[in-house]
């Protein structure tokens, strides 16, 4: 395991940004860290990089606490959306900084990425468009080849074409140089094919920590007459239900095996898997409903 997080909480005044989070990250895997704004994604990444200090619990990266630890932190690259560059930096200075700071830096790869994203090397970073600024961050993150690379939505400023280019480069480079990558994003469906393992934070709590493939089969929508839908929903967790006349559509969590599926279809219902994005939305929505329930 490259990362071990145990019982980590982080409190800011009255707000509990993270609440008893426990998980591990394996070597050479691409993780998706998903959740709404304010769910605690950035705080979690800051804890992994020693930028924040946990209120409770322990964080270990490469077997050691990351706080003020050069040995650990030179192996970690954390690119956040609002990374600030000094005013006097040009694009080429940002690249030189990356080359100096990251021991696994690949200069040739960095230069090819600069060409591919059509970045002007001599332009001051503060004069770049939002898309170009995002591209600088993405290039730093990719070319660092850090064994643990964290992307906190730095691709937000990129347009759809540039984002696809980023995903393609990430996947191609990952195939040649496997490492642990954590992508935090709202654009869940875009990264669904990249992600091997899903972590979902909701209100500071980790509500999903599962392999993407396993998760995909776990939540389905069942559409059809009420008795047929209930045949699937019974004994599983029903996350959401709506009805239109006699037709009911329910979102259900729990493995639906072939027998259950056949039974539902015999009764006239259709069982469909959810896209990763719909799945996360339904789980996060259910979490919010649970929280409301328990606070009553």
């Amino acid at each position, binding site marked *: 395991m*490259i990362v071990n997080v145990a019982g980590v909480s982080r409190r800011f005044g009255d707000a509990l940004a993270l609440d008893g989070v426990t998980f591990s990250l394996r*070597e*050479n895997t691409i993780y998706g860290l998903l959740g709404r704004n304010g769910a605690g994604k950035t705080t979690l990444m*800051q804890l992994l*990089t*020693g*930028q*924040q*200090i946990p209120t409770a619990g322990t964080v270990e*990266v*490469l*077997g*050691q606490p990351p706080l*003020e*630890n*050069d*040995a*650990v*932190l*030179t*192996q*970690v*690259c*954390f690119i*956040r959306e609002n*990374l*600030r*560059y*000094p*005013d*006097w*930096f*040009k694009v080429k*200075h940002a690249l*030189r*900084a*990356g080359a*100096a*700071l990251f021991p*696994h830096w690949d200069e040739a790869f960095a230069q090819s990425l600069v060409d591919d994203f059509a970045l002007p090397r001599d332009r001051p970073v503060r004069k770049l468009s939002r898309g170009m600024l995002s591209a600088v961050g993405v290039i*730093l993150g990719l070319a660092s*080849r*850090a*064994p*643990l690379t964290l992307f906190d939505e730095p691709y937000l400023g990129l347009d759809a074409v540039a984002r696809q280019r980023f995903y393609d480069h990430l996947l191609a480079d990952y*195939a*040649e*140089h*496997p*490492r*642990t990558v954590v992508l935090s994003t709202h654009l869940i469906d875009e990264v669904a094919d990249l992600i091997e393992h899903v972590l979902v934070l909701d209100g500071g709590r980790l509500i999903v920590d599962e392999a993407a493939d396993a998760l995909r089969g776990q939540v389905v929508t069942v559409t059809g007459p009420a008795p047929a839908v209930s045949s699937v929903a019974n004994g599983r967790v029903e996350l959401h239900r709506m009805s239109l006349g006699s037709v009911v559509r329910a979102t259900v969590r729990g493995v639906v095996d072939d027998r259950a599926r056949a039974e539902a279809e015999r009764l006239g219902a259709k069982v469909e898997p959810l896209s990763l994005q719909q799945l996360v939305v339904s789980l996060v929505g259910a979490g919010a409903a649970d929280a409301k329930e328990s606070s009553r």
Partner: protein
Amino acid sequence: MTAVPVTPTAAAPISPVRRTLTVSRVLYLNWPMALAFPLGIMATSFIINILIFAALGDAAAEGGTGGLASLYIVQLIVCWQGMLQNFAFSVGLNVTRRAFYAASVLVATIQSVGYAVFLYGCALVERATDGWGVHLHFFDPLPVTHSFSPVTILVYAVPLLLISFLGLFLGAVNKRWGSTGVFILAIVSIFVLGGIAALITFLDGWPAVGHWLVARSWRSIAIGWSLIPAALAAAGGWWVLRRTVP
């Protein structure tokens, strides 16, 4: 192609000295810009002084000007702003606060000594040319700089160091608590310094303070005694930065 995993099994130790040098290189990546402002502004001040003294001609008294202060003021701002911006970038990219601060202190020290040597050289030229031909004491304005031994370099360097560390400290306060923090610090400082002055007045202590100052040479104040607040500012900067989030 065979895949080459980059993940090490455990973190290998890193020499703190090497890391500090690496980070200082990052702080100085755009070194022409880092030098252009302090030297450019001082040069401007120098040229204006030359023009004024030349215009005054013989009417000008043999004298010094405060023009050199421009370098010290700019250095304060450079360190302050440098701390704000470099911290967000470097620590944002996972440089440890310790390595970052050590590198900042190292760069400020090299700058201070470098400028001091440069000023000393200029002062030698100034002396040899009878004040640039116009009796101007720009680089050598105080009695304390008049003695021309290389020790004079320290007379320039240590106050610069004090100013630089003060800039780093203010930058750290600014980064951690925002401009509110700087204003509160200003209020507290005025209160404390004013309080000390009031206390000295109340105790009729000014003559004693005067005696203390007179008993020490200018040189010992500029070199030796300036080191105390410089060290305090450097330590204060670290104390503030230790828990600052980029």
